[in-house]
């Protein structure tokens, strides 16, 4: 499904569109074709060969790793996926960079029409994210390459669509839609006045909150100034009034008890455990009594040695070093450690959870803060 061409989306020439389409096809080929083929090869050939030699199948992720790294199919798969990822950012980055002189003033004009944007040039970028450009995206979410920069935001909005070969919908928002629907369905008694989206990126998952709760004031925050500059402009051209700010989800500038609902989408798995704990603690501080937090991300870590090994592929090959930390939380106890009651922790079965068919351990979980407002 093609991406919705809103006025902030980078414009592409005929050849640029074709290059992006080729990269999306490569992504689809590796994920929809090679990924299941690899599992079949492991189950039908590699694991039985190992069992014949050792008397039992590989019993740990490390053993699976040794088997897989000796396989031409796995090596070829990994090189293709990594190569596609680098090609994606470089190819789309070239287009975005070329268009910055048009996009930057267009964004400023759009932001003046609705919504708000608050930047914090003195915000410290945490070492854990400054050291590693997540997803091998050069510059990560926060690097600025010019004045009033929005490069990272424009690149991410286009890049996610190509990466997911359109699988998150024309607005890259299906995760956010599922999260917003979960709030409505699970907590019909909550009539949120203020909602906060943590690690909002280009705002793809923030806008569905405004659609689901038209009466609410919706806020989005992200570490990256280029992200929120772009997100604010994108929201404005799509007709949504949203308050974006550059902030660290672990230590925000909002006063205590500011929000009825706090959500995040695919944020926690890019954070090391101490930062995740800080985010959970910050959610408890920011929620009003009776308010809820929902995190759409990993729910656990697979026990099966093959699944566990394949889950950690992104850590070794896609600059996502902290993924295991979010998958191995003891979520109820960790929530209790920051002030929630353990029995107020929940997991939501919501259709549309990210890559559920691949990872089988992703979904939405959260906690409700005690009390009534």
């Amino acid at each position: 499904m093609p991406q919705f061409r809103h006025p902030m989306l980078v414009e592409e020439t005929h050849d640029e569109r074709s290059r992006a389409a080729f990269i999306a096809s490569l992504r689809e080929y590796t994920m929809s074709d090679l990924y299941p083929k690899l599992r079949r090869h492991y189950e039908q050939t590699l694991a039985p060969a190992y069992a014949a030699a050792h008397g039992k199948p590989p019993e740990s992720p490390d053993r699976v790793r040794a088997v897989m790294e000796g396989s031409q199919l796995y090596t070829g798969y990994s090189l293709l996926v990594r190569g596609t990822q680098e090609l994606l950012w470089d190819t789309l980055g070239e287009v975005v960079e070329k268009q910055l002189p048009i996009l930057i003033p267009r964004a400023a004009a759009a932001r003046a029409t609705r919504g708000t944007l608050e930047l914090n040039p003195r915000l410290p970028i945490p070492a854990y994210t400054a050291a590693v450009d997540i997803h091998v995206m050069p510059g990560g979410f926060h690097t600025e390459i010019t004045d009033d920069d929005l490069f990272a935001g424009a690149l991410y909005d286009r890049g996610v669509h190509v990466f997911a070969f359109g699988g998150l919908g024309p607005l890259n928002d299906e995760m956010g839609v599922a999260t917003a629907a979960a709030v409505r369905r699970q907590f019909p008694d909550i009539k949120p006045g203020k909602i906060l989206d943590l690690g909002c990126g280009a705002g793809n998952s923030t806008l569905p909150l405004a659609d689901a709760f038209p009466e609410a004031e919706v806020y989005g925050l992200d570490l990256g100034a280029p992200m929120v500059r772009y997100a604010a402009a994108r929201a404005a051209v799509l007709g949504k009034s949203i308050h974006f700010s550059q902030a660290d989800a672990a230590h925000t500038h909002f006063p205590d008890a500011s929000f009825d609902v706090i959500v995040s989408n695919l944020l926690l798995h890019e954070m090391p455990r101490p930062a995740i704990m800080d985010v959970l603690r910050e959610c408890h501080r920011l929620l009003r009594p009776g308010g809820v937090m929902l995190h759409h991300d990993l729910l656990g870590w697979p026990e099966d040695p093959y699944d566990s090994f394949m889950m950690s592929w992104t850590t070794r090959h896609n600059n996502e070093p902290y993924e295991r930390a979010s998958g191995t939380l003891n979520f109820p106890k960790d929530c209790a450690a920051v002030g929630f009651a353990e029995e107020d922790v929940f997991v939501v079965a919501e259709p549309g959870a990210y890559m559920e068919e691949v990872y089988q351990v992703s979904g939405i979980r959260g906690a409700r803060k005690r009390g009534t407002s």
Partner: protein
Amino acid sequence: MKRRRYANGPVRPQYLDSPDADRAVMMILALTAEVSALRERLDTHEKLADAGKPAATASVESFEVPETVEAARAAARRSLIDRVTRVLIEPDIPRMTAKKATEEA
């Protein structure tokens, strides 16, 4: 204004027997994207000609790809990828060396 073209973080993992071989594969991927883009541009020329229109730059750039044409292009991209990546993703089949084959013959 200059974007960075490499990512901060751990060094790129090594996949084949040398990092140079990995680089060559990545270069081939970029070139294959270019072949695909050229093929699609040629297809646009053909579609315009089929409709009796001149393939001027502006009409190529503004060509709206009909759904059936896009489906055919997607299939062609897929075939191209299959052909280019075939040897990279061969399943692990035990192969007889030429020497051993000669000995057994």
